[in-house]
């Protein structure tokens, strides 16, 4: 048996993260820190992104999906990063990626709408708060750092609130996302007039999703975000939309394309930020995870806990942070999902407190006012 609580690190330091108490990072110069939240809308499958290959139940639950995990980057003996995340694996190797597993927001039902609302508002339940936690964060930052932008057509819930934010997105974004096109296809399937028209349209049309397309779209989005964030006059806080994670069917190919896009996004963000990358914290998170087992259509259904990532030069990475609950039937949440053992709100509050040198209790009370006072998770950010 091994200790369920562990760090897996390139340094091989396996210890209890939750009990470790290094000193809190001191605030750096007031205006050079960057924070980026990349949202994965649609419930990204954490068990495929960061596969717990060391869990005895994993291969049985995941069938053919487990093959992807075998060809991915091994992070110690227990976890493997999806093979599409090659650039992320490099960040991990360079100590700039902290991967977190079995983590969830306070939301415990399985509606995308409600789950994203909780993820973005920072409330304990859906539609309880109108403002987003990222907007409230701006109120805690020095004036020079309270500059935020959404890389999207409109300001998302996470950034809505009393503090001014801007939004910007490229003039040429991919046309309708793959996922929407697929759903429209399902919707037209039994329509005698629309179904043949749609089949024809799809046959003659090269599909380009918002993260698929060989990673080109993701890279373009990352490069754009970097342009907005880089330099003394750049934005300091950014929100980046990604969609298409709701893989109910044909997950292997679709998720690989999604992850490749995400990987390219992060890589081009790093490249574009240049020296500013060293002061950057990137959070990647989704509204909830997916079922532990594969469903009947080669996909997974809505679940509970998933994986999250902290990336960037500011991150003390090269580790996996998890309090692994196990995948044995009795360990699963409601007999079907990965059980949450870490609180996403607490991770965010701790990471931001350390990144900005703010008091944890104060930041938690502002960003997640309905939650409990979070346990300290020290050592997320480089001192």
């Amino acid at each position, binding site marked *: 048996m091994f200790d369920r609580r562990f760090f897996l690190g390139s340094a091989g330091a396996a210890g209890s993260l939750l009990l470790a108490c290094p000193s809190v990072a001191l605030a750096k110069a007031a205006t050079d820190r960057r924070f980026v939240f990349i949202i994965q*809308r*649609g*419930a990204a499958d954490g068990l495929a992104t960061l596969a717990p290959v060391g869990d005895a139940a994993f291969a049985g639950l995941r069938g053919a999906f487990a093959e992807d995990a075998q060809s991915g980057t091994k992070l110690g003996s227990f976890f493997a990063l999806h093979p599409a995340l090659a650039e992320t694996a490099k960040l991990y190797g360079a100590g700039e990626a902290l991967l977190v597993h079995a983590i969830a927001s306070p939301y415990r039902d399985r509606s*995308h*709408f409600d789950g*994203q609302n909780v993820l973005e508002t920072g409330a304990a339940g859906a539609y309880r708060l109108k403002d987003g936690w990222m907007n409230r964060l701006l109120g805690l930052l020095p004036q020079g750092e309270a500059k935020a932008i959404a*890389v*999207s*057509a*409109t300001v*998302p*819930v996470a950034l*809505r609130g009393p503090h001014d934010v801007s*939004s*910007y*997105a*490229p*003039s*040429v*974004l*991919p*046309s*309708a*996302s793959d*996922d*929407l*096109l697929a*759903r*429209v296809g*399902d*919707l*037209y399937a*039994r*329509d005698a*007039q*629309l179904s043949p*028209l*749609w089949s*024809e*349209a799809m046959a*003659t*049309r090269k599909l380009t999703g918002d993260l698929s397309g060989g990673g080109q779209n993701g890279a373009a989005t990352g490069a754009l975000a970097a342009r907005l964030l880089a330099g003394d006059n750049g934005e300091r806080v950014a929100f980046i939309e990604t*969609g*298409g*994670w*709701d893989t*109910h069917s044909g997950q292997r190919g679709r998720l690989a394309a999604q992850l490749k896009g995400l990987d390219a996004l992060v890589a081009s963000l790093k490249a574009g930020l240049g020296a500013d990358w060293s002061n950057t914290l990137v959070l990647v998170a989704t509204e909830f995870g997916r079922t532990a087992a594969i469903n009947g259509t080669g996909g997974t259904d809505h679940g509970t806990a998933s994986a999250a990532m902290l990336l960037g030069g500011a991150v003390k990475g090269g580790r996996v942070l998890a309090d692994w609950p196990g995948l044995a039937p009795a360990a699963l949440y409601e007999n079907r999902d990965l059980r949450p053992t870490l609180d996403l709100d607490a991770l965010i509050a701790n990471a931001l407190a350390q990144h900005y040198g703010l008091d944890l209790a104060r930041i938690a009370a502002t960003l997640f006012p309905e939650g409990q006072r979070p346990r300290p998770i020290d050592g997320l950010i480089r001192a």
Partner: protein
Amino acid sequence: MTAQSIALNRFGLGGRPDEAAPADPKAWLDAQLRSFEPRPAAIAAAPSRQEVAQQLADYFEEIRGMGGPAARRAQAIVPEARPRPQPAAMTSMAPMPGQEPAQAMAQMGGEKALNERIAGLPQSAQQFIRKAGRDYYLTSVAARTDAALTAPAPFVERLVHFWANHFAVSADKLVVIGLAGLLEFEAVRPNVLGRFEDMLLAVEQHPAMLLYLDQAQSVGPDSRLGGLAAMRGRKVGLNENLAREILELHTLGVRSGYSQADVTEFARVLTGWTVDGLGRGPGARLAGGGGAPGAFRFAEAIHQPGARNILGKSYDQPGIEQAKAVLHDLAASPATARHLATKLARHFVADDPPSALVDRLSAAYLRSGGDLPAVYRVLIDAPEAWNPAIAKFRTPWDWSVAALRAVGTRQLQGQAVAGLMTQLGQPVWRPGSPAGYDDIAASWAGPDALVRRVEAAERIASRAAGMVDARTLAPKIFPDSLSPATALALARAESPSQGLALLLASPEFLRR
């Protein structure tokens, strides 16, 4: 569809989140025939005819001063500027995060397309067209859209769109860019609840129509000015364009029994119907200069004198009365009644309208002396129009208005609308032919068109996400009529924005 849903979508322009579904659908429609506002604030704020026509007059004056080849090239705005540009390529209509959507849409649809069309023209012509396009056309498109989005009588607004398309002018002919919207505002709206004959007369005397179908320059060979011109060896003469289209498109309908001789005779009758204040030369003064620019003018000096014979009837009225008498008879003709009844039934019931309904509409038209509300009431009472099966595929305009209403939009910039409509293949007041846009599914339900709508749905949804929840919106827009498949798709959507996009792209939303 339930009767409520039919009233909202088939008769109306689609539901709004801030408006309740009508409790009594038929009464709701009937009441609109009394509550319609011909000149709501949005329309009243549109550019005036005088302003638009003055710009045109100034431009004509300028090119007259040029002389030679430059003037001839600048005159290129008068003849047709064909072919109609294809809508922007698929890739370029992608969502435009970052830029204001309006701005991006304008680049794709409005200004970019316009710039391509006028690239070969002289600078002065380009300047004229840009100003007319920006200040007049786009402003009018915005006014039309505002009325459609917020009007208290959406059924009558739909009828306005119907009649404006029946009496189509096309801004493809660049000289009418600024005037196209005014035809709808000044000739259609005030008469949509009146007699057809009055609308017909208002349309045929409108500068947009007189210029679009070349009537303004048609000169009777034996008129005073025609004689003078012939003596000086100048080529002026009859133009049959408007006469033919009145017979073929506006009234009797194609192949309804008139001959080429009838067309020519009618063209002679119409000589003298022209636009005031656009010319300043001596000839123009004779023909009709000096008045308020853009006003209708009957110019005796170019009117072909004498009695005329059309469809076996002799017309010997003096001056302007002659054409009025012909229009009066055309409006009262059973062929016209049938033509209009067929088009109305096609618009509200089916691409191939049931003949029994066409008969009833036609009879109501003749019985009432062309009183349009009497015809509309037959439509409201027609069981065929309340068939729960959805037969009509929404045109791009219809779909866009319904989509914008559904997400609660109350106002949109003209360039945003113009761009959207160009991308969807139905630019506003630019059908490319006097026949107007088709009103059948075969013209609109194509593979590529479908993808464009889905892309537009995603874009509209992304702008509205967070403001509306598709799951609560859908039953309001389609009272008791949402299909289980669509309801399920909305519930399973991966985000609020995607749910909204799916609603706008759903089979029930594509039709009415």
